[in-house]
């Protein structure tokens, strides 16, 4: 968890205190994954959660997974780590929590990430969320149906 937090702070402007990382690990320990170098240092991670079925809403949402944060250190790109982390996480979401789909947010301008999600992993754009990020940038809300994987 220390390594995940450190990698997150190095790479992304959206950061979290340690308790947030612990909370995810304690609640859904099976669906977050890390990539390590040969010395055991964290070079990549995916932090995921499960959104429970919400009976109270008008349109009850089925159980689904959500990727809160994913990042690979720049010096460890081109190894397919992000793809591998995502796939392992998705498999666990489906198998253990019977998640029907997985969702995530990505910056509209982040071509590389959108390419990974859409072209490599098969995500589709569900909608645009205006000014989602702290700096005002729009987000694409993307979704992958897990029945097919």
């Amino acid at each position, binding site marked *: *968890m*220390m390594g995940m*937090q*450190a990698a997150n*702070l*190095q*790479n*992304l*402007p959206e*950061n*979290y*205190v*340690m*308790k947030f990382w*612990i909370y995810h*690990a*304690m*609640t859904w*320990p*099976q669906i977050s994954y890390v*990539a390590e*170098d*040969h010395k055991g240092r964290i070079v990549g991670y995916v932090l995921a959660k499960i959104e429970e079925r919400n009976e109270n809403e008008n349109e009850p949402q089925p159980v689904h997974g959500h990727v809160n944060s994913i990042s690979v*250190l*720049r*010096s*460890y*790109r*081109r*190894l*397919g780590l992000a793809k*591998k982390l995502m796939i*392992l996480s998705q498999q*666990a979401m489906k*198998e*253990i*929590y*019977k998640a029907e789909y997985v969702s995530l947010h990505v910056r509209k*301008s982040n071509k590389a990430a959108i390419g990974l999600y859409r072209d490599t992993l098969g995500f589709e754009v569900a909608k645009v969320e205006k000014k989602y990020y*702290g*700096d*005002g*940038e729009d987000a694409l809300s993307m979704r992958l149906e897990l029945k097919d994987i």
Partner: protein
Amino acid sequence: MSKALPVPAKRHLPSKEATLFKELLTLYETRQLKKGLKTADQILKKFPEHGETICMKGLLLTHMGRREEGIDFVKKGVKLDLTSHIVWHVFGLIQKGEKNYEEALKSYTQALRFDKENLNILRDAAQLQTQLRLFDALVETRHTLLKIRPSLRQHWIALAVAYHLNGNLSEARKTLEHYERTLKNVADYDIEHSETLLYHVRILEEMEDYSEALSLLDVNSKSRAIVDRTAIMECRARLLSKLKSDEAEHAWRALIEHNPDCYDYYRGYFSNQGLSLENSSQEALDILRQFSSQLSKATAPRRLALTIATGDEFRDLAKSYLLSGLTKGIPSLFVDVKSLYTNASKRDVIEELAEAARVEFTPSSDTPPSSAEDTDPTIYLWTLYFLAQHHSYLGRPKKALETITIALEHTPTLPEVHTCKARILKRAGDLLGAAKSVNDARLLDGQDRFLNTKCAKYLLRAGCVEEASNMLGLFTKKDAVSPGADLEDMQSLLYLMEEADAHYRNGKPNLALKKYHAVQKVFNEIEDDQYDFHGYNLRKFTLNIYMKLVKWEDQLRSHPAHVKAALSASRIYIKIHDDPSIATAITSSPQLTGAEKKAKKKAKKAAQKVQEEPKKGPTPSANEDKGLEPVQPKDDDPEGLKLIGVSDPLEQAFKLLQPLTTLVTDNIDVWTVVYDVAIRRKKYLQALQALNHARALNVEHPEVHVRSMHFRQTIDTLPEEPPAPIGPLLKEVAQKVVPEGLSILTFNGQYLQRHISEPLAVLAAAKVAHGLKEPVQEVEQVVFGVLGEGTQLDIPTALKVLEFLTEIKSGRVEEFRSVCNKQFEISTVFKPLTELEALQKRTLSGEEEEKEEDISPA
């Protein structure tokens, strides 16, 4: 639920007020604070000495932010009714909010004396006991809870966990078995039940009851009661291996097929086959080849093969691995293979292969651009990039720079090439040049925080604290007091440690101490974070991960950043103890940098704003629940003046070092610093123990040698021998350290001869000589031995030597400095200070111009 004790007169309320009191409790539970306060006052009008009501009033006031007032009331209420469980419960809540867990537990224990079966109090007590690692008491509390309400599943689980934490696996197991028998109508798919079973299996595994564990696992995987397939597979493989079953191989293989990139699975597989992954073995190699072809997308088997293979096989495998990486343009290729370099022949083979690749892919001027060799230019670039790192790692900075320069001419737009150059320069001692190169990389991709962070780090290494802060500010929260404040809030250890180290090198130990203490604070926060999870995980039934959390927290302070911060801070404390003028010089004339002044101003403004707000009128929402945690006090020592001016620096150091002595016992630096502090505090036994630990790890280590000689010298010159048993014990060890008949000086000379070609050992001998009051010229003579033929002097060591010569006020400081300056051609760290400052100005103003063109992210 109070039992038969008669209610004391002072607590008794007639029916009207009794009803009001019940209302009061409900109003508190629903946080209707204003109404609650009114109700309390109603009761108090008639019964002004009703302790329980006074306590509740205090509790409400605290929630409303009127903390001092509130706590006064609570204390008053306790005094007025010492045998009420309510007053002690309230007091405990207040103390818990202050994170004073020991006192809180005392209050809760008192409360339980007067209401033994109060579920709320018992649960809170259990959490406190877990936090404080009082597992005997925890087991009792969990037992009580179970007895009161055996129908609640959690109570069973909690008891099992308590037994487990207390080291009583067999009772934990019995509890779980009993619990599972009570279960009726478990749904087909129940994650909580699944996790509970996995926990049960884990307990059996820890008890080494492997076949029981396996059958429990298998039965429940078949019935699909356990839903976590990965956990099942991992557990199975482990158990089958421990049982030396034939099925184990298949189990590990299944895991590898499930996740071909998990090195642990390969380790498990090979360990099961009785094969090592370190030594060469044809059998192991064949297996890896097989995995490689079966799992074509996985790097792990191919990389592992490189470690095992030798000779021509190694050459073939290395060639294809290297070419594959260079073709794909993998930035981490060098970092990946460099661990093979401990084997000199493998290192040479890789160099050969890389050089051959370079020759092959060098674009010739007469190749038409649209030919099949179009892809080569990129491979060419990555080959140069690889070779530059290779040469830098092997201590050939000039060659490395030449190589990377060609790469830069070829492709100046790839950030990695610039960061590579930066690393080369950093290692070669040109920190400013390194910072500039990283900045060049950063400018190529302003949106990338990784490059921004790297750039800031290199600026800090070069001592440019203010510039680094501005750099980081491009990505920190805009409404934070300063970039550093935001990074501290977000617990960035990288930032805190790098800035602390920079301040230390810049001769600002007060600011360094401030940041080292900030690191401590982060670890205190993380230690405290676990508190809520002692109850949370039980409610969620995520038990295996919870046990991991507890163990992790127990080890938390062995984290490298914590160790480094504690040691560095302690070294500062030792310095100011040895020379108090350092501290007084700072406290009497604090000097702020521009950024620090800016941040101070901003903080002052923010503080003023906070003070002005209440003057706007009565707070609009008096019902707002501020919780029970005290508000963070303002930082009253932003420049660390109080820290540096402290009257008991050695005691402060001792506090910081405490956890390290139990958690990090294999670290020589820890023991040498513990020794340094203890001997100065005249705690001879402590110093002795630390010395013994250090000597046991490596008696010839330079730092250990210095302390050994210091110890002998100290004991020899004690004004009087300490009383038995300490005195004789000290004498005994002193004789061991330097045998009878030999003078310390002679022994030191022998040490020097043994290690004449090791610069750090030579320095150590010089330090000892100096400590023995040898003439400065003799000491200098020893020191200059590090420049001799055959010694491998590196920059960090040379800097340590320089520091020592400066400390002893040697007349040959400049001489040493200029020799090093010549020897380490690329470095700038040996330049005289004035030249360095001018260089810094030039470099940074160059960066400023570039920055103005840079479009920073919104």
